[in-house]
């Protein structure tokens, strides 16, 4: 069964450093997402990406964050200058999506996540 993969599984970085989290979505999927989950808390939406551009972003996704699909298979999340509060599990997800009555209907497949620890 196809699955979303993410690398690295764990990343430890110093505050102020840049990190790049990598994801390989399922190959025929068109919609891509990044979420984060602070330990013990709920899953929070960061950004959605479709047709090579951001389609929606949350208030968490400020100027320190950026996303890119550099080569048609990878989907990356960059944090330019990490803060202590960026420590979390970051999940990538992808979907085929479809149009249903009243809006977007889809199944999102989550990757295993990257645990980021900022010291």
């Amino acid at each position: 069964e196809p699955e979303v993969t993410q690398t690295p599984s764990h990343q430890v970085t110093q505050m102020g450093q840049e990190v790049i989290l990598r994801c390989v979505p399922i190959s025929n999927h068109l919609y891509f997402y990044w979420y984060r989950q602070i330990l013990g808390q709920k899953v929070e939406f960061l950004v959605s990406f479709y047709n090579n551009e951001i389609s929606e972003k949350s208030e968490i996704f400020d100027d320190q964050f950026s996303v890119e699909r550099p080569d048609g298979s990878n989907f990356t999340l960059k944090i330019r200058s990490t803060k202590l509060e960026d420590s979390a599990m970051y999940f990538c997800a992808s979907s085929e999506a479809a149009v249903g009555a009243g809006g977007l209907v889809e199944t999102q497949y989550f990757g295993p996540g990257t645990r980021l620890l900022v010291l």
Partner: protein
Amino acid sequence: GQQVMQIPQYQHVQEGEDFTTYCNSSTTLSNIQWYKQRPGGHPVFLIQLVKSGEVKKQKRLTFQFGEAKKNSSLHITATQTTDVGTYFCAGRWSWGKLQFGAGTQVVVTP
């Protein structure tokens, strides 16, 4: 902003008992999804409900979407130790992002 409220936050269940977790929105949803996250794992899609009053079953799991499309529930019968984890509902309003609830963490006592 638009949110989904999920209760209870924690659920301790004896093996073999039933339990229900609830999800509520103050405004009408387009659709709602349910995910399960095992300890240390990632969210895994369980089901999507789209129609008003929809009921779907997956073995011992029964999912309902309210008539007004503002609430949803997940009922698990005869709980097993494999049901341990956190169950999240995630609501969508039209074309926007999925908004996850806070989750119900389920602990099963043998």
